């Protein structure tokens, strides 16, 4: 293959990383104290004004778990002036995430998504708890030398969310390396060009373990988009983490009306977990 004449992309970068290194890097977003499973009416600012047109958004979440507790949480990322925020990325699964120095690792979501220069970026949650928080690190990449060549979306649709319990669709993996059943996550309502996968825990765990996640189309005659492409661990301290392995988006052309499914296999214990998908358009 000849060297591509196209110059590199992503020459610009910014984040809300703190000045001094810390275990949970970014900005703490507190769960609303008023009522469980209800979105906060106020937002927490992450970046006051973005410096460039971002075309890749990486979110790393940390520090939301509590041993012995269900910490199911949904996180919205918004843009807009204070008290005029609009949701850009809805309902990210944000519970059961350990601290940034923990064994199970943090949870990272990578969105090929446009955010205009000058945007104020903020976040809010709802949670089964009325205490606690999640720390949100947002990293923005931009500045491609050939902007027309880099695909990125303009909005995100969450699929499989259950706002009543701040969770998503529960998936039971097969045990000891056997593939489990196929679970419907939801049906797309518009065309998507990429999918991002989200997980968090369900209830309390008595056994630690590991799992692979598969994502596909159709419950009865499944066409798999990716098999065994996402590894994560579950700890008995109610932590679900990707162990510092990057989870990249699934780039595929997904028409409206598509039934999206998930399957999984575990190494030992078949720990149940929640799965959501985020379609980028």
């Amino acid at each position, binding site marked *: *293959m000849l*060297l*591509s*004449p*196209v*110059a*590199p*992309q*992503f*020459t610009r*970068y910014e*984040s809300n*990383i703190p*000045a001094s*290194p*810390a*275990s949970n*890097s970014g900005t703490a977003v507190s769960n609303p104290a008023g009522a469980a499973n209800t979105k906060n009416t106020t937002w927490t600012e992450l970046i006051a004004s973005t410096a460039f*047109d971002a075309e890749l958004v*990486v979110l*790393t979440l*940390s520090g939301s778990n509590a041993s012995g507790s269900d910490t199911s949480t949904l996180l919205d990322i918004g843009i807009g002036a204070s008290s005029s925020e609009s949701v850009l990325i809805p309902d990210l699964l944000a519970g059961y995430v350990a601290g*940034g*120095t923990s*064994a*199970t690792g*943090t949870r*990272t979501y990578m969105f090929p998504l446009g955010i205009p220069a000058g945007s104020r970026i903020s976040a809010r949650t709802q949670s089964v708890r009325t205490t606690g928080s999640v720390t949100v*690190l947002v*990293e923005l990449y931009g500045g491609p030398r*050939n902007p*027309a*060549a*880099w*695909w*990125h979306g*303009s909005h995100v649709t969450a699929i499989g969310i259950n706002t009543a319990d701040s969770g998503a669709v529960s998936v039971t993996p097969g045990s*000891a*390396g056997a593939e489990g059943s196929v679970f419907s996550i939801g049906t797309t309502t518009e065309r998507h*060009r990429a999918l991002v996968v989200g997980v968090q825990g369900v209830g309390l765990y008595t056994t*630690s*373990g*590991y*799992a*692979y996640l598969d994502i596909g189309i159709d419950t009865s005659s499944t066409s798999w988009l*990716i098999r065994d*492409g996402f*590894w994560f*661990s579950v700890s008995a301290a109610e932590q679900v983490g990707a*162990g*510092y*392995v*990057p989870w*990249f988006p699934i*780039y*595929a*052309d997904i028409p409206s009306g598509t039934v999206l499914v998930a399957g999984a*296999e*575990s*190494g030992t214990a078949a720990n149940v977990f929640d799965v959501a998908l985020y379609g980028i358009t």
Partner: protein
Amino acid sequence: MSLMTRSPVYSQYENNWQTTPAASLGTSVSHPAGAPNTKNTTWTQLIASSAFDAQLVVVTLTSNNAGNTDTSTLLDIGIGASTAESVIIPDLLAGFLNTLANSGGRSYVFPLHIPAGSRISARTQCVRTSGSVTVSVQLFGGADADTVWVGQHVTAYGINTADSGAVAMTAGNSGAETATPIAVGTTSVDHKALVLGVQGNKATYSSSLVYHVDVGIDTSSTEWLVRDGYQFVTATSETVYLGCGLWLPMYRPVPSGTTLVVAGESSGTSESLDYALYGIS
């Protein structure tokens, strides 16, 4: 921002993960037993024959640490038939790694072409003559040729084969930047992207700290490519692992003859660590 009309990137994927999920991912590559700090004469196969033209290569390393022991390791990724391998990614820093489920993973992301049908393998040299490192390889492909920049080869800078390490740097303490940037090396060819590598360089680490790393050009009048863009964690179990955020490549045209530098800061009293940079051409 309007929807781009180009096709999404990376519609193809494969890896070398084992059938049953486990604490670490991929293939165990044993260190040569014959002599320390000497490359193995034999290679360990990771993928027998790659299924497509890969355009992004993600190498995640785990399981190469021992308490109170220097585990400095250099890992080569090669392609080619058995006994005819050629190095495609040289001298990745591959020591001081726990299992993936125990804060072990360090991931390297290379925008690099590997032709379909390639046999991919790995070998190490290490300060030890026992032990191994577990290597996960994830290949992404299927992008339009001009939607992503893809390099053809990788050059390592700062490597010290005598101790299976690289350039030592002690970051600034408690959030203070390093007083003087440390030169990692001078580029010998033009590059369009850089990848950062880190590992420990001594037998015992006395404290668990969070670090931020900066990468730039020129020691005296430094132009920073990324400041605080790479975070990692050290543990007293002699492990060095990624904390919050992803380590994505730095996409920048870097001419031949450029002096590459690193600097950094930690959350406490910093200790010496080794740093290398990998230029992609």
